[in-house]
């Protein structure tokens, strides 16, 4: 394996084709295994959707192996996930109800899929009053197979493996803003973000505490009802009165501001980094997760490139000096790829820093990419299948 010297001198291929293929094989087999059931569908669209996802996920993994870069290839998957999720979701809603809006009565009767975003706010009411304050069925029913128990189980399993990396490999919303953040060449508001980064990254924690406390007080999922920017591109309460009209305005304003405009201006994931309470909650699991990014102080020259490249301001001058990322690091790999001194490295907890960073990266990627294929892959396949359905060929 070639050693990773500076990015300028970095060879275009980090590994040979043969070795990269060998390392990709397990992931190719896993993808096949995941999507074999899709091939049993009668519809050709499903077949094409599943085949496209297998090629896509395996191809990206191969490129990660071949180039030694993580961020660029992961971002392609993640942006695809972010944009294809609403495609499949909205199409399913329109096919079933004819509209993206849902009357409050149907929402109350649990006729809405469970969303992992509300997980933190259902904990206190469930503990104190044994009531799940999200309107849905705890166990699967014929009309709603996405039961709360299954979704929470799935979230927990993924979280144990990924920690906060959920936010860059599994969340089907973050990709939208990552897509908008990838568009411009220049970063704007950079000085503002550097100066106030310490305060900005505390906002999600404040929103988390607020949402948890108020949800317990009024027995409603407050985030869902008032603060979710992604309601604008998924499902929202039908506008029937002033209150629902205000809710709609809030959803649209948050989506446009935090998911489109600010990411475009700053090249940061502003919703994830400076707003999302679920992301803050997820950060706690970084404490128990085995993988992290560390800065090798022996090689670091304090140039700050890693800090600038981080999409969620998870590095500060102090943290770089301490050789660590902050708790909100989502293991996207941008800092590792940006560092020209190979000082930012993947790390397996309990081993010496920078001893075998590529081994830590491989171990992390095998687990995470496998879960991303399983969880995100089905969302991608559904989106592709929906898009094919729109083609005039049919």
């Amino acid at each position, binding site marked *: 394996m070639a050693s990773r010297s500076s990015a300028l001198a970095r060879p275009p291929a980090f590994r040979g084709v043969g070795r990269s293929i060998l390392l990709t094989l397990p992931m190719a087999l896993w993808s096949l295994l995941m999507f074999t059931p899709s091939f049993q569908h009668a519809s050709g669209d499903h077949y094409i959707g599943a085949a496209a996802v297998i090629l896509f996920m395996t191809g990206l993994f191969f490129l990660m192996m071949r180039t030694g870069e993580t961020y660029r290839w992961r971002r392609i998957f993640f942006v695809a996930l972010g944009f294809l999720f609403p495609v499949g979701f909205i199409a399913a809603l329109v096919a079933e109800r004819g509209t993206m809006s849902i009357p409050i009565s149907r929402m109350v009767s649990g006729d809405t899929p469970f969303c992992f975003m509300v997980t933190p706010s259902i904990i*206190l*009411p469930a503990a*104190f*009053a044994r009531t799940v304050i999200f309107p849905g069925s705890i166990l699967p029913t014929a009309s709603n197979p996405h039961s709360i128990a299954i979704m929470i189980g799935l979230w927990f399993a993924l979280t144990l493996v990924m920690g906060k990396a959920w936010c860059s490999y599994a969340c089907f919303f973050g990709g939208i803003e990552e897509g908008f953040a990838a568009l411009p060449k220049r970063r704007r508001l950079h000085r503002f973000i550097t*100066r*106030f980064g*310490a*305060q900005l990254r*505390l*906002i999600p*924690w*404040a*929103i988390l*505490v*607020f949402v948890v*406390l*108020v949800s*317990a*007080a009024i*027995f409603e999922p407050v985030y869902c009802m008032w603060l979710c920017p992604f309601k604008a591109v998924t499902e929202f309460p039908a506008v029937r009165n002033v*209150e629902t009209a205000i809710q709609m305005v809030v959803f649209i304003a948050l989506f446009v501001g935090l998911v489109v405009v600010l990411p475009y201006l700053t090249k940061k994931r502003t919703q994830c980094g400076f707003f999302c309470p679920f992301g803050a909650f997820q950060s706690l699991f970084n404490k128990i997760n085995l993988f992290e990014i560390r800065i090798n102080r022996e090689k670091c020259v304090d140039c700050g490139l890693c800090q600038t490249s981080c999409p969620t301001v998870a590095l500060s001058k102090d943290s770089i000096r301490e050789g660590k990322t902050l708790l909100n690091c989502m293991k996207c790999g941008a800092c590792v790829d940006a560092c020209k001194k190979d000082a930012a490295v993947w790390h397996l907890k309990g081993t010496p820093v920078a001893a075998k960073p590529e081994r830590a990266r491989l171990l992390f990627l095998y687990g995470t990419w496998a879960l991303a294929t399983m969880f995100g892959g089905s969302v991608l396949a559904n989106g592709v299948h929906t898009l094919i359905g729109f083609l005039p060929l049919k």
Partner: protein
Amino acid sequence: MLGLATGPVCLATCGPVVVPWMLVQPQGLRGHSRQLFLFLAARLAGYLVFACAVWLVGSAIPHALPQAWTGRSWLMGAVQVLLAGALVVYAAGWSHRRCVVAKTTGNLVQIGEAPVVKRSGALALGFLTGINLCPPFLVAGVRAAQLAHLSAALWFFFCFFAGTAVWFFPFLSLGFLKRTPAIVTVARMVAVLLACWYGFSGISILIERTFHG
């Protein structure tokens, strides 16, 4: 018994006010106990004022009590707006001077560093949560209004308070949480968010009562 049984609901209702207030206090069990005591004492005062009011209404115009309850929306709206103001002033520690300092230095992290120990804060927040008409409080109000003597109504509310107060002691554990500028800053941000929430909720109630009676 009513207080003990409905305690978790009280805890959930008052939690949003107590948690950020306690978190902006310096670390330590002693300080927290004092703040909680003041908060609960003011809350008791709020209860007793309310007990007097409902008993007087109930005894003066017994059959009009249900109509009198319609005024509760006004009270709820007004209390929530006041609570919003108190949260901003005390828990968020906003003052004219502080805004000027923040503006001129541009160093907002200072909001996490200055400890705020104000007795009036615990008293104001305690009193306002004491007269905030949460569901268990309304149940207790109806019972108190039906009692024959004012002293019985006051005693009833005192017992109700004692039952619910037990549930507040777990908040003392917040005193052990290590205070970093980040935790204090988050607590203040939470206070501002809650102030927006109570303010919005209170104003909505007031507007609704004004236009829809």
